[in-house]
């Protein structure tokens, strides 16, 4: 042991510790996300369990109806319970088994759609086109297609050959089924390797199938008025679809388009370019999205700080997108007016 005369206090004053490395920072973040998501799952589970248990008790109490929920079809009273149970099973299952479950549930949805179609066919002698279905059946079909596509869109890209074939078979069945509805409606499900998620494209030129993407949920409406669809055929796909706006339709469409343009400014991630010039007095940040450039000034300098700053301006962009697009140039001078042009 050291026997020199140095005071302990002097020794303490000489030391400091190495700062956290980027790798350590990322590793701790992953740990936070792991723990946080499990906490959220438990909280969500607690919140959802109470009504679910009550529902299940009630359902079982009236003669094993919970079992029936598993067989409930879109439009049935127990269909929502069926979906809740499926979602819980998805939540509980291991990550590697989620895709198989999604495919299984999507397959069930497609089968249920077939059942509705067959019943509708027997009810309506004139055929099984969408316009011949009852309103109730149309609603059920919309729900079923929505549910199937939502499940398929959650499938990851790491599918084995067998699961890919299953995905293809379900997509084909969905297409076959849709072929009997609006003639040009097609559902394409393709695996997007970049985002590790299946991507769903739906097209219907006559506007009978409308796809609405909101807050990560896919909602589909089946139109039932051919003439309306024809009138709208020249207009943009993202028009408002409310049926009760005949008189104000044009105004309403214009407003929607304006709103879309506004949100594009802040959130569209197409052609994203971000340049930050760090001057001695301030930093000039130029953000270009879809040929629209916006200029901001700040006194922030580091990549992390600037990314955070841009994130506050463009909340729908992910931090990874911002960081990959951000180019920083250090200028050894104060900024001038021309730098802000």
């Amino acid at each position, binding site marked *: 042991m050291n026997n020199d005369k140095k005071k302990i206090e002097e020794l303490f004053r000489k030391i400091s*510790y190495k700062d956290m490395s980027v790798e350590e920072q990322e590793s701790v973040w992953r740990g936070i996300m792991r723990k946080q998501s499990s906490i959220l799952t438990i909280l969500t589970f607690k919140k959802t369990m109470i009504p679910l248990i009550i529902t299940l008790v009630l359902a079982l109490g009236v003669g094993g109806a919970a079992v029936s929920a598993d067989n409930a079809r879109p439009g049935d009273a127990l269909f929502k319970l069926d979906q809740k149970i499926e979602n819980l099973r998805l939540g509980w299952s291991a990550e590697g088994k989620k895709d198989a479950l999604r495919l299984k549930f999507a397959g069930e949805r497609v089968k249920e759609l077939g059942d509705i179609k067959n019943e509708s066919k027997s009810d309506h002698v004139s055929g099984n086109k969408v316009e011949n279905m009852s309103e109730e059946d149309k609603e059920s079909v919309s729900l079923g297609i929505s549910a199937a596509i939502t499940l398929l869109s959650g499938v990851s890209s790491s599918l084995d050959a067998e699961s890919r074939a299953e995905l293809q078979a379900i997509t084909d069945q969905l297409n076959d089924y849709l072929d009997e509805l609006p003639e040009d409606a097609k559902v394409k499900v393709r695996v997007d390797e970049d985002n590790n998620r299946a991507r769903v494209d739906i097209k219907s030129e006559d506007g009978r199938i409308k796809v609405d993407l909101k807050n990560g949920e896919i909602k589909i409406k089946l139109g039932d008025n051919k003439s309306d669809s024809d009138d709208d055929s020249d207009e943009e796909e993202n028009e408002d679809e409310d049926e009760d706006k005949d008189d104000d339709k044009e105004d309403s469409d214009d407003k929607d388009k304006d709103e879309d343009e506004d949100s594009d400014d802040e959130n569209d991630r197409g052609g994203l370019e971000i340049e930050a010039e760090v001057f001695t007095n301030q930093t000039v940040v130029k953000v270009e999205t879809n040929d629209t450039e916006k200029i901001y000034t700040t006194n922030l300098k580091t990549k992390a700080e600037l990314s*955070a700053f841009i*994130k506050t301006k463009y909340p729908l962009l992910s931090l990874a997108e911002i960081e990959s697009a951000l180019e920083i140039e250090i200028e050894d001078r104060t900024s001038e007016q021309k730098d802000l042009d």
Partner: protein
Amino acid sequence: MEDSELKSLILKAQSGDPDIFRVLYKILSPRVFRFIRPRARNRTEALDALQDTFIDFWKGLPRFSFEGEKALDAFLYRIAVRKLSRGFRFWQSYTELEDVEDIVVDDVSTPTGDVYDVGKMLSSLKSEDRNLITLRDIEDKSFREISELLGEREGALRVRHHRAINRLKKKFNYE
């Protein structure tokens, strides 16, 4: 980062968006780690405490009211101290050489043995004494500042510091 920008970021993070919280974490975690590391017995313990601190910060964020950067730091440091003292109750107290490998010494002539001793000394202290010595001797704060930070009387802190140093001198033969 200016207070107004930090405040805006915290308000957005209160909605629960993980991306925004990640931004906050990126900005705040280096300084919280610098606070935690001297108070932890080794780097792994410091990183664990940092993780737990930010999990608690995230959970408490909806109720947090931003009143400036210093208040935010104080809030985070209070959580960190709580996490560290909890850790001290469960973790073993011996020190390995690798536990002090991340100590940087200003004076390059300081013998490696002394650096190792510093690590061992800090590890051997009780949580509150370790915090006190870190504040006083490593972070070079006055007893008045420490008194304000910890909410304890200055005189009592001086006595506790003196006794802790004496115990270390005796234990490690630094007379």
